């Protein structure tokens, strides 16, 4: 196992390096730069700007300098927001995005997974159909519609919650709900489906035949075996949601990392694009490693190291 993890960590570093390189190439390949503006500044001023941010260095040097910075955990200064650094953005934005994301994930699991189990146990009964309907609406109506509707109802009409911004717990509710809907729907559908698979398997039938109660069967065998796809789905989901979601952060004016990332691409804020990509990429690789380790615990038969034929 230790050897396997070592292998994976090595692969992760290689992947991160490829990711950085591809992103670096892509962002320099597309038109526009950080100082492209509707009003063109005189050439001399553009030269000053380029000099200040080392954009007049040859690309390979910029690339190597950047990699050097990453190795020292210095992601560089922002071009769009002078005086601020990409490390500042992460230090400020990540806790906010992560807080919202964790709440949303807990919410979606707490509701979605039991809903999925109930659906499966009551297949094609009203419980199942209701869950399905909610889930379908959850995935079909995107957050950019849900969020303004929530805001309209609960902030403007009922005055129960503040419309937007970030600070106290009341401001967490609407964005968390809006953010939770899609994973909630996914969890409930995935759970239902894999529960149905598991329930029809012979070992469950055996367990039942041995006289185990319905509850015990469900918990001890079915859920444990059905949770695999959920775990798979959770890996990238946690990485994606904890590093921020643009639409939700934009609509609710939340100072998270998701908005920063989209702005950075819009603004061609090179260091920020790269920095946040590296941050997200590292997070994703770690999550997926954890997922694979969890596989081993869930089903000890799984051999990640490959089979000798």
């Amino acid at each position, binding site marked *: 196992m230790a050897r396997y993890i070592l292998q*994976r960590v090595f*692969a*992760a570093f*290689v*992947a991160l390096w*490829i*990711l950085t390189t*591809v*992103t670096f190439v*892509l*962002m320099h390949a*597309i*038109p526009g730069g950080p100082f492209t503006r509707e009003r063109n500044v005189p050439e001399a001023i553009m030269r000053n700007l380029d000099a200040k941010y080392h954009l007049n260095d040859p690309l390979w040097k910029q690339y190597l300098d950047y990699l050097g910075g990453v190795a020292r955990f210095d992601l560089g200064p922002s071009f769009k927001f002078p005086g601020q650094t990409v490390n500042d953005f992460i230090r400020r934005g990540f806790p906010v995005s992560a807080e919202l994301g964790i709440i949303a994930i807990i919410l979606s699991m707490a509701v979605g997974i039991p809903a999925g189990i109930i659906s499966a146990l009551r297949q094609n009964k009203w419980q199942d159909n209701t869950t*399905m*309907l909610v889930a*379908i*609406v959850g*995935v*079909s*109506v*995107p957050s*950019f*519609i849900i969020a303004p*509707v929530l805001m*309209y109802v609960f902030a403007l009409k009922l005055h129960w919650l503040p419309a937007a911004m970030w600070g106290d717990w009341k401001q967490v509710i609407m964005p968390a709900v809006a953010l939770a809907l899609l994973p909630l729907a*996914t969890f409930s*559908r*995935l759970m239902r*489906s*894999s529960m*149905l*698979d598991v329930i*029809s*398997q012979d070992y469950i039938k055996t367990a039942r035949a041995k006289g185990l109660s319905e509850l015990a069967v469900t918990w001890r065998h079915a859920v444990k075996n059905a949770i*695999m*796809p959920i775990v*798979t*789905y959770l*890996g*990238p989901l946690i990485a994606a949601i904890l590093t921020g979601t643009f639409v939700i952060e934009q609509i609710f004016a939340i100072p998270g990392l998701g908005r920063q*990332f*989209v702005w950075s*691409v819009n603004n061609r804020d090179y260091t920020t*694009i790269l920095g946040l*990509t590296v941050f*997200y*990429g590292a997070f*994703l*690789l770690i999550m*997926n490693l954890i*997922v694979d380790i969890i*596989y081993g615990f869930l*089903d000890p*038969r*799984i*051999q*990640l*190291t*490959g*089979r000798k034929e």
Partner: protein
Amino acid sequence: MSIVNGVNPGVFGSLPDNAFEHVGPIPEEQNLIVRPPTTYWQDAWRRLKKNFLAMCGLYVIIFFIALAIFGPMLTGYTYFGQVLQDANKAPSLAHWFGTDHLGRDELTRIFYGARISLSIGIVASVINLAVGALYGGISGLVGGRTDNVMMRIVDIIYGIPLQLVVILLMVVMGSGLLNIYVALGLVYWLGMARIVRGQVLALKEQEFVLAARMVGADQRRLLLRHLIPNTMGPIIVTLTLSIPQAIFTEAWLSFIGLGVAAPMASWGVLASEGVGGLRSYPWQTFFPAAAISLTMLAFNFLGDGLRDALDPRLRR
């Protein structure tokens, strides 16, 4: 209990003796097996037909496709014809679904939008199945170092900012529906690949796989005949849930400039354009969103039915 030719056994006694003629053995029928051999797919189709909700879903989808093709001819409006004086009119007899911000008939635009959005849904499904399920299946089945490499490739693609790729695609290839398919093709299989790979990792250690190996199934047969069919549950769920996301991704891609050029608009574009005026003109968001939801509902019923129909354990 039914008998050949549908003759009720109860009437035998009342028949005259010469009612039967001795025909002797029929050589050509001696080897005939009563139940015709059905393939996996025929079998699945037979079972799907018995599933009421699933067939409803299928009919709704066919109905929507028919509307997408013939609907625009029925409304008497075009998707581009503007009557600016009639902008933002609520639903009425003249405009069943109201008009948009340029005074175009919303219903007609939704019919046209169906062409794009349904095709996006279908293409996304095909990509998911053809690329995602296969890629994930191979990665999981082969395992070891291959798996590590294949999955890290998935992680890298996950990590690359899609917006950068899309802008580059747009600059290099210009706009058009085909380019949307390409963009979707680049990314819309990653989740599926991970799900299938996870399932296959677990399944391949199960007894039935060992049994199949024992009787000499090669990797290819193992994957296509045993492992993937047994992963149908999560595959179908992932598939049906990823379709709306593909439809909305298309709206975002079109906004950036990769999709079909205005004034043609998909459901996703219609919904996202309407949302700015959600309070004053709610129908501009409601109808396209409802069209997407209905389609998704239909796809889900069909998906659930397919799941049951394709489940090898239910094959009797």
